[in-house]
């Protein structure tokens, strides 16, 4: 199994030597026929599931940047998701802006909100930071719940679908290409950022903020940057969620329960592992879907998974795979150098 992963990695590294975008283009091409495979192989519903998985990938990859890489315990991510969704929806409904305008504005506004959610991180750490961000996230939801202009209790209805000219993204398949493209770009950007000095700065802050600051990293700036980047992801996911048919938003979609689900994705996939966020989002979405018929035991199932993961696999599925790959490479290198000596 590990051999398979190292093989895939070696293949993609080889491709990226030719051109750095080549692996991504290949991955994109491989994902293009997926809705048809799902539709005719299993059922149309799985295209919808894939769409939701893509939304969660964006959310958990974004959360992983601030939580997994920068080590800032935030529980306000779901509030940012709500801001992105509601902003884009209201711009589209009240000002008749097309999705292509309303979504970028929503993403920018969510990014600004990210600064506010991130500000406590300059002074607070751990549980205190979690509490502060929890307050900010919940207050967003309550604001939506009590303000009629934001939908309050009836929710926001009839949010128009994105369209290009006459083509409307109103089917599972067409929406798939929208969210899948966004998810791939999101994952690619997260790789680009996290594999640069910015990403290393995030991780250094997670590992030891004092050592990081002495290593020349502007710690408050990079903490805020992590919050803003993750907020941009949440904003994009929110906008995509708002305009996804049937185009309905309700504050119930942004409670602490959803936040815990998001955290579960990150923990399950692997904190501080880019693929971890992706794996976690897919695994949780699929498990959740497959256990629908046993709704009575669902919280129990997820609770057990969470405990088992934290105790036995603190680095998640992604972490386990990564560690095994690193060890294998190290042993191979040692053997090689012994062989040549």
């Amino acid at each position, binding site marked *: 199994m590990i051999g398979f992963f190292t093989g895939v990695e070696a293949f993609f590294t080889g491709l990226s030597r030719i051109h*750095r*975008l080549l692996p991504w283009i290949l991955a994109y091409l491989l994902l293009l026929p997926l809705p048809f495979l799902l539709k005719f192989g299993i059922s149309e519903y799985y295209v919808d599931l894939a769409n939701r998985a893509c939304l969660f990938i964006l959310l958990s990859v974004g959360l992983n940047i601030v939580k997994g890489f920068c080590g800032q315990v935030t529980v306000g991510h779901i509030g940012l998701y709500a801001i992105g969704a509601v902003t884009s929806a209201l711009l589209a409904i009240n000002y008749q802006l097309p999705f292509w305008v309303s979504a970028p504005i929503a993403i920018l506004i969510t990014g600004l909100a990210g600064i506010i959610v991130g500000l406590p991180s300059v002074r607070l750490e751990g549980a205190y930071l979690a509490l502060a961000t929890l307050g900010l996230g919940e207050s967003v939801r309550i604001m939506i719940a009590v303000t009629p202009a934001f939908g309050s209790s009836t929710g926001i209805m009839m949010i128009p679908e994105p369209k290009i000219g006459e083509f409307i993204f109103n089917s599972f398949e067409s929406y798939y290409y929208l969210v899948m493209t966004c998810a791939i770009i999101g994952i690619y*950007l997260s790789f*680009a*950022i996290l*594999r*640069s*000095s*910015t*990403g*290393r*700065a995030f*991780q*250094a802050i*997670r*590992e*030891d903020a*004092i*050592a*990081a*600051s*002495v*290593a*020349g*990293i*502007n*710690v408050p700036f*990079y903490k805020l*940057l992590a919050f803003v980047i993750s907020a941009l992801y949440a904003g994009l996911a929110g906008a995509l969620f708002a305009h996804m048919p049937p185009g309905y938003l309700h504050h119930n979609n942004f409670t602490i329960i959803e936040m815990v689900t998001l955290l579960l994705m990150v923990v399950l996939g692997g904190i*501080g592992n880019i693929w971890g966020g992706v794996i976690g989002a897919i695994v949780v979405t699929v498990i959740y879907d497959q256990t629908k018929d046993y709704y009575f035991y669902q919280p129990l199932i997820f609770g057990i998974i969470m405990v088992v993961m934290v105790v036995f696999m603190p680095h998640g599925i992604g972490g386990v795979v990564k560690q095994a790959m*690193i060890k294998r*490479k*190290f042993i191979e*290198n*040692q053997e090689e*150098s012994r062989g040549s000596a």
Partner: protein
Amino acid sequence: MALLETKGLSKSFGGVQALQDVDVHIEEGSIHGLIGPNGSGKSTFFNVISGVYRPDSGSSVLFDNHEISQLPPHKITELGISRTFQLLRLFLEMTVLENVMVGYHCHTPYGFLSPILQGSKVREADEKIQDEMIEMLQFLGLASYANLPAGELSGGQRRLLSLGRAIAMKPKLLLLDEPGAGLSPVNVDHLMHTILSLKEKYKLTVVVVEHILKVVMNTCERITVLDHGQKIAEGSPEEVKNDHAVIEAYLGREMADEDIRQVIRA
């Protein structure tokens, strides 16, 4: 010429005066020792110089003609001071290579937005940095562990890595906080040898805080002695060794035979 000069450097925590009016003068290109008993303020001195703590008002720290006493740590590092920690503070879950690359942070030739807009530029720059860092790791004997998490290194290797991370910052002044703590005498000698060769290789000025007096006496050109947050002596190893105040600080007050008898009787 003095590379680092402190004047009236003070730091108090609540009522405790950790540093009091310390004037230190460190020559460019020298290797300077900083000794003193436990709690004498050596680590606080380092923390204040590197910006982890802000000194009390009225203190002045002049580095390379810049007043740095009120600057945040990353600005101080940018100006050319790097340090190690007594407890190492390595980034344990990052690889060895990443650890030293974090050290390189403020010399990164691209901005924080470049990864999004100029992917190929970032990649080329990172590859160049990597080559440079691998070369340095080779010098430290850590190159074959480059892709292992730092947490999997042995104690001695970790000390070397923390040194490597500090060197990667391309400092003019390197502050070493007890580099030999927990090492066997043989290893300490080996480590000091490495430090001296690094100093030559990268044209560094070095300040060493060390408990093992032998190390300091043998390697340092000048030594400053702190006790209870105050400078009690400064000079060449010979001068310091014979200084009355230093002996008192380390061994307690020199007692005449008559005094000892009195103490025993009482």
